[in-house]
């Protein structure tokens, strides 16, 4: 069974409270949940609290019949689950028959995905305006794969795997024939890249080392820079991050000395990926933008498309979905023009993640499958494993656990063959989440710990901090508060070292909740305040408002009603300013507090 996300516990409590006070009234409450399995978990929780009727809507007629014709007996709440797509018929029904929801005099809780909600706002505006409250539930962390687009020293165009294998045979033949050292270095470079694209990292490493040796022998600085860069990419893919950084920096230095702007751009790009993986977002953005500028000046479309892709990931990470979509779209267009099939496959994968995040499961599946097909045609094992992983996530969130396990397992196997440690750790993490979903806590812990171990070996501090955070949440859910605290604290320490302010704030918040849970109110207060301070410094208004609200609840519990009221008023004002739906919850808390303080 899907665990309730920590951040959603308060929200669900509020939904229950709202349904409680709405009994006998036809209130319309909307709730956005993107993951079907998570939605079903929440429905089950609600069913234990209220006599309910759940309607899985497919056509408009389903709504009209239920609201007009059926005898609902002692049902206290109606739970509506909307389909993945808003058909015209359904949009019309919602718009034209919205009064029926109120006429029935039973509260209505409507579950829908983010993408359907967007459609409702556009195509069923009358229904949207008629709503009462509105919630967004996030669910648990899925460990979404963000696919960084590595840039090698040179880039190959090829039609399919056969084409790539033929190029391999040609280069192997030429390697024996060519006597010129510069040509030899070029052939070794291409053989290295072919092996890399085929996922044969061992051969790739051999070719790159030979290329480096040849280039050093005849003082071909450009060749040296090229092979160092490729060795860096191999080190990165096999998880040796410090070595990768060292090699990229060495390559960068040579390119700078040579005035080889293209070489500088590709090294900056890769260093950007390392910074991003380490959670240093600002540094990553700087590096990508610098790389992008050089590629634009050089008219290097391929380089431009790669930088846009990475900036898209940063935007997606920061929750700026529209910007991410724009950047991915721009990058995809260039790759299609360049007939860069591998790049197209990556863009489709990222757009699939956007669709998945918006709850448009079918669109996400279509995009992942298209991406998978291209990777299979190209013989790109790494791409295949990524698509399988994403399809595994889709299976997991639509409740097909066996299929999810199969897909994750297949993906994991390829990554293990490739020696792709970071990919292996991601698969293990998701298999852990799957075990957690099915209630196998011990297996979940084992897999999370295995994933954590790899991240530690790789020196992926950011990944380690996230794994520790997840293990902390697992411990918290199983009631092991001390272990949870230890893990959150360890995670916090790393985030502090990395300067990951947002992560630090989140850890402090969780530690605050633990302190509150164990009755250490002073400590909880201190931690919330610290978290609040960081959010304020970062200008994270949403974070500030949440912590203010959390502090208000704490003060309410402690009987400091005036202080609680002051805090919740501030939080409500901020939520209203942000047009955040949590304003409604804040209002409820404020009204409750005002009732408790007669002179207010």
């Amino acid at each position, binding site marked *: 069974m899907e665990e309730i996300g920590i951040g959603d516990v308060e929200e669900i409590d509020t939904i229950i409270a709202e349904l409680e006070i709405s009994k006998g009234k036809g209130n319309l409450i909307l709730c956005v949940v993107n993951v079907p399995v998570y939605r079903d978990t929440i429905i089950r929780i609600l069913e234990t609290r209220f006599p309910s009727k759940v309607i899985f809507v497919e056509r408009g007629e389903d709504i009209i019949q239920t609201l007009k014709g059926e005898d609902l007996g002692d049902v206290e709440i109606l739970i509506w689950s909307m389909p993945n797509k808003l058909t015209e018929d359904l949009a019309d029904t919602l718009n034209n028959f919205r009064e029926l929801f109120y006429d029935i005099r039973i509260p209505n809780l409507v579950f829908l995905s983010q993408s359907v909600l967007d459609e409702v706002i556009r195509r069923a505006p009358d229904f949207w305006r008629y709503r009462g409250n509105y919630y967004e539930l996030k669910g648990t962390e899925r460990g979404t794969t963000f696919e960084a687009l590595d840039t090698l020293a040179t880039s190959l165009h090829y039609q399919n795997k056969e*084409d790539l294998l033929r190029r391999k045979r040609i280069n192997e033949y030429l390697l024996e024939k060519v006597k010129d050292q510069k040509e030899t270095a070029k052939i070794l470079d291409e053989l290295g890249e072919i092996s890399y694209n085929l996922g044969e990292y061992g051969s790739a490493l051999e070719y790159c080392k030979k290329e480096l040796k040849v280039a050093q022998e005849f003082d071909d600085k450009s060749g040296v820079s090229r092979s160092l860069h490729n060795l860096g990419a191999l080190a990165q893919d096999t998880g040796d991050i410090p070595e990768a950084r060292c090699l990229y920096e060495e390559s960068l230095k040579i390119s700078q000395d040579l005035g080889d702007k293209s070489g500088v751009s590709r090294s900056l790009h890769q260093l950007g990926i390392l910074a991003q993986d380490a959670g240093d977002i600002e540094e990553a953005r700087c590096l990508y933008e610098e790389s992008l500028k050089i590629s634009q000046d050089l008219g290097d*479309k391929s380089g431009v498309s790669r930088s846009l892709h990475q900036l898209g990931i940063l935007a997606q990470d920061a929750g700026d979905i529209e910007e991410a979509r724009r950047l991915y779209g721009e990058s995809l267009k260039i790759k299609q023009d360049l007939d860069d099939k591998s790049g197209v496959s990556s863009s489709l994968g990222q757009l699939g993640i956007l669709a998945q995040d918006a709850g448009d499961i079918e669109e996400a599946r279509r995009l992942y499958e298209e991406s998978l097909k291209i990777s299979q045609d190209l013989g790109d094992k790494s791409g295949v494993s990524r698509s399988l992983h994403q399809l595994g996530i889709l299976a997991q969130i639509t409740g097909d656990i066996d299929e999810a396990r199969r897909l994750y397992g297949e993906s994991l196997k390829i990554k293990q063959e490739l020696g792709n440690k970071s990919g292996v750790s991601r698969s293990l993490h998701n298999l852990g989440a799957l075990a957690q979903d099915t209630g196998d806590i011990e297996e979940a812990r084992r897999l999370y710990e295995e994933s954590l171990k790899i991240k530690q070996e790789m020196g992926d501090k950011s990944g380690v901090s996230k794994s520790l955070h997840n293990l902390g949440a697992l411990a918290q859910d199983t009631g092991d508060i001390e272990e949870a605290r230890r893990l959150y604290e360890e995670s916090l320490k790393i985030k502090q070292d990395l300067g990951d302010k947002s992560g630090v704030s989140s850890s402090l918040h969780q530690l605050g909740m633990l302190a509150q849970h164990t009755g250490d109110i002073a400590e909880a207060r201190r931690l919330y305040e610290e978290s609040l301070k960081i959010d304020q410094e970062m200008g994270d208004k949403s974070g500030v408002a949440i912590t203010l609200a959390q502090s208000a609840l704490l003060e309410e519990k402690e009987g400091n009603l005036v202080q609680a009221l002051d805090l919740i008023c501030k939080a409500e004002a901020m939520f209203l300013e942000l047009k955040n739906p949590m304003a409604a919850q804040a209002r409820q808390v404020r009204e409750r507090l005002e009732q408790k303080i007669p002179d207010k």
Partner: protein
Amino acid sequence: MPRAENLKEAYNNFFVEPLKEEDEFRDFYVERPTNAPSPIEELWARIEISDRKEKYLFLGFRGSGKSTELNRLLDMIDEERFLVVSYSIRDELNVSDFDFRDFFVSMALKIYDIAEAQGINLERNIEEDFKDFVKRITKVSEEEISRSKTLGLSLAKVILLKLGREAKTREYVRKELDTQISDLIQRLNWLIIDVEERTEKCVVVIVDDLDKLTRGQQAEDFFYKNYELLIQPNCFVVYTFPIPLTFNPYYENVRPAFDDDVILPQLPVRGIDGSKNEANLNFYREVVNHRMEPDLIDQSVLNDAILSTGKLHEFVSVMKDASIKAYRNKREKIAKEDVESALEKLRRTYDRTLTEAHKKRLLEIHDTKEGRDTGNDDVTSRELLFSLTAVEYEDENGRWCDVDPLLLPLVEKWKRSE
């Protein structure tokens, strides 16, 4: 090719096409004067001894004898050590709609074609890959190739024909190669390596008529925007180069990228001060003497013809025209009026094409002996040099310009109308 003994034979011996065949060289070729020798011997020596696959620019005004000199080079290169791929872009492509992408396709196809024609068994993967690639970028189907094979046309010939004749094919190839030009050059180099490996010879590509690109902008795009690509083929390449482009300041940025720029100078019949250049006059006289008996023209008439043209191609063309005129007038030899009539016809043709700006600039060139444009946007001098109404010479006084000698009689007329 016997020397002409009458005007009918003379008419036929004054052909303006470059010398090509062995007997043509034997009978008609005239060594250039010792003070302005042909640079082709030096170019040949460089190819023979260089360990690097050098790239050369071969410069010369149109009609100065470049193609003849390139044909000599072809003849001089040791066939045991070199495989020469020599072609004219005018024969293979559409020079009025031409760009670098068409050019590289043509170069690769010519090398592939010669390998096929000489029965060189290319490495199977390289050959299959090349064929797949060109079929993909030209959208030529397997059926078209099979059909053409029955007509005796090779793959390379079919594609070159389509590229030269069909705007749609050119458009498609350019679109495809916009992003894959480096892939094409890589395949070109694979072919070169394999051909060299299997024949144990070095490939030398000689590309003629690139100087005849009909629009100046086309030539600038080809040589200046894409010069880095031109040095990428992994073999010796001789590119003919339009001399008017050397007047563009950008030339100095491009020139060092090539291993040498070889210039075939015009041989001025007069010095910068107007004095006659006897050595060069003799060269032109010898051209005539090799082609016809000296008594078919009076020496004074011949001198007038030489002094009024001063450019090899134009001179031979005037002599041909004068021969037919004399023949039709039933004369025994070419008379002064035959030459005058041929010159006047040519002069009128040029005069018609000149704008007032051109004439003004020609007067300036005549006065200053300099043929510079005033800036990057000014192309007047380049247009005049391109059309050969202004001519650049090189002699012991260095490089200098003047109005085409043919047009000198018009100079006074233009001055009066200013």
